[in-house]
């Protein structure tokens, strides 16, 4: 049966057609980038767990991101950019597959994308005209990259740029079966996940693995809270950026343009700022809005505790921003910004509110979904701002189009405004957390967020007494999401809820035989 030509299809087509009209190459110096016959390079830097509401480039009162503010002066800044999931697995899969978690089904912690949709990944769609590189310090994202391994020309090892490795990491040595061997060895036989299972499945491998754990908190004068650590190894942000720079400089010399996906762990917890940033915001007078505890809170933190965590997180962001700034300066001085699209984003944000700290939660408030997106087009020397809501699922069609390829029609994203897309404030953006729902069954236990213009509906499904509850906010008037008017504006709430449930039902249809 032929699929009807939807509004979304129209927008995709119109956006693609408008690209050369709206953004002639000369406008951003693309001509010079293409003079040597090469397409521009595309560099994507993903900083894990970077919440836009904590960044001064988005108006946060603490000066957390001066380097990004500088970079913004030659970039397009997306002010309402959203993750499609609230933790790495669903959010990264959405970014790399261009679809909402209910489609790609990487729903669970350490979950995987639908095997039959793996071919939809960004790397394959970029085509072999690009030298495709990928690296991540986040094991959840690494599992997805391993699923896409065949489409990546240069898949840098997970321990690239690591210091003290605190795990055996056996699966890394089995590149042809690195996904299944991860679950066998690094999630069962050798490594016991915290709070999971009795002990490792193999007495010998388990012991060899656990004996490395004492390297987790490396004390250092430079790092009062310990050296940065990603649950698997310690690392140094500045060194990581230097190593990435080396890799991309090498790639720039190649015959093909490169596409580099570099997904750093930082500023994910544990927050470990250097001495010069530690305590920077202590008693600075900033007081965020105190919010009441939510019934679905999982961590039950006190307000005082949340304030302390927020302070350290902000300090760590400032620390990371300084290293990122040096990296961007190096790109600029090396001329890379003249032939490279530079994209800076995150997979998801972080919550410090309503008793919740973290992101692996049932809550979908802005702190955990609102993420940064800054895109610098080759040669761009002026700032542009996009206020229309956009989603990380839009990156795939946008980047694939930049690479001169046609995005897979199954992609649910549209071209980003500023990269050929048109602004559509009535578009519905969905984000989802269904970490306790089987990836193979209809979604019946989830929180779903739908953003349409400035309105945001959060719908809770399968949470016992909270089942079927919804919250409605107006982000324009109430960015802190304090005034829930689901009960007062019943018309808007009902309309948005109907659309959300319709989309959810459609996604569930393929799995309905398993309900």
């Amino acid at each position, binding site marked *: 049966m032929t699929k009807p030509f939807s509004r979304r299809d129209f927008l995709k087509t119109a956006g693609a057609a408008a690209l050369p009209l709206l953004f002639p190459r000369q406008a951003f110096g693309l001509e010079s980038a293409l003079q040597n016959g090469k397409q521009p390079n595309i560099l994507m830097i993903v900083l894990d767990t970077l919440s836009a509401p904590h960044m001064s480039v988005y108006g946060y009162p603490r000066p957390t991101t001066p380097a990004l503010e500088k970079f913004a002066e030659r970039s397009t800044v997306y002010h309402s950019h959203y993750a499609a999931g609230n933790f790495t697995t669903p959010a990264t899969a959405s970014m790399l597959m261009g679809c909402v978690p209910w489609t790609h089904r990487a729903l669970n912690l350490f979950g995987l994308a639908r095997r039959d949709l793996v071919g939809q990944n960004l790397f394959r769609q970029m085509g072999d005209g690009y030298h495709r590189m990928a690296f991540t310090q986040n094991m959840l994202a690494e599992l997805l990259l391993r699923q896409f391994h065949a489409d990546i020309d240069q898949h840098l090892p997970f321990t690239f740029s690591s210091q003290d490795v605190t795990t055996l990491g056996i699966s890394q040595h*089995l590149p042809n079966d690195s996904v299944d061997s991860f679950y066998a060895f690094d999630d069962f036989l050798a490594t016991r996940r915290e709070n999971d299972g009795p*002990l490792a499945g193999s007495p010998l491998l*388990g*012991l060899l693995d656990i*004996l490395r754990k*004492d390297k987790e908190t490396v004390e250092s004068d430079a790092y009062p809270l310990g050296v940065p650590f990603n649950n698997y190894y310690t690392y140094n942000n500045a060194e990581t950026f230097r190593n990435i720079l080396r890799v991309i400089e090498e790639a720039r010399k190649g015959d093909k343009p490169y596409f580099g996906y570099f997904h750093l762990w930082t500023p994910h917890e544990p927050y470990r700022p250097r001495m010069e940033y530690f305590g920077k915001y202590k008693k600075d007078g900033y007081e965020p809005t105190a919010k009441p505890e939510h019934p679905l809170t999982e961590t039950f933190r006190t307000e005082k505790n949340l304030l302390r965590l927020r302070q350290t997180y902000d300090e760590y962001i400032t620390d990371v921003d300084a290293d990122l700034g040096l990296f961007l300066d190096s790109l600029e001085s090396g001329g890379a910004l003249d032939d490279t699209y530079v994209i800076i984003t995150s997979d998801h944000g972080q919550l410090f509110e309503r008793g919740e700290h973290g992101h692996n939660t049932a809550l979908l408030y802005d702190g955990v979904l609102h993420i940064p997106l800054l895109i610098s087009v080759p040669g761009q020397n002026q700032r542009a701002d996009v206020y229309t809501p956009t989603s990380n699922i839009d990156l795939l069609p946008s980047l694939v189009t930049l690479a001169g390829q046609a995005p897979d029609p199954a992609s649910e994203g549209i071209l980003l405004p500023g990269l050929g897309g048109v602004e559509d404030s009535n578009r519905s953006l969905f984000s989802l957390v269904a970490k306790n729902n089987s990836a193979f069954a209809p979604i019946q236990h989830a929180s779903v967020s739908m953003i349409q213009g400035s309105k945001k509906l959060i719908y809770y499904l399968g949470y016992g007494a909270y089942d079927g509850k919804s919250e409605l906010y107006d982000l324009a008037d109430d960015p802190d999401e304090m005034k829930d008017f689901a009960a007062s504006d019943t018309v808007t709430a009902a309309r948005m809820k109907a659309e959300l449930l319709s989309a959810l039902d459609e996604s569930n249809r393929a799995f309905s035989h398993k309900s």
Partner: protein
Amino acid sequence: MLQTLKSRLPDRGEVMSVYAVILFFLFGWATIVFLWKFPAWLYYANLGEVAVFYLYTVFTEVLEGFFYLVILLLLCVLLPVSFFKEHFSVRGTIMGLALPAWLLLMQYFIAFHDFGNGLAVLLSALIAGGLASLWMWLSVKYAIFERVARLLVERTPIFLYVYLPLAALSLVILSVRNMGS
């Protein structure tokens, strides 16, 4: 030299029987943890993939069992013949159980009690070694303790008919999966 070495080693039947006891313990433990993980895996892995995890488990445990067996054979060479080799079925069984138990205890103290590595090694060695020594001593004094060890060493070899073919199958399948560019 080789002849002397051979004379200090137990016969093949005894070795295989003790190996079976070790594998019985390792597979038993791995199965407990496997079943713990199984429901979570089913959230995102299909049965074929879970079967592959199990094949890795089988292969690993068979190799690991061989590692403990080599240690026991080394003990046979090093310890007085009258103490270890001549009682290999019973004392090899006890030591074959104590070795992996020692390693598990070490992990337990580190993972659940945050003990330092040194303390964990010492304490677990005291417990596992103490219990193994006690069992050996009791097996001399009271027949029932020897009978328990003999029961294990006589009955578990039947499982070798499952473990070893499964390990061979694992080797083939996992080799194929790990071959290629």
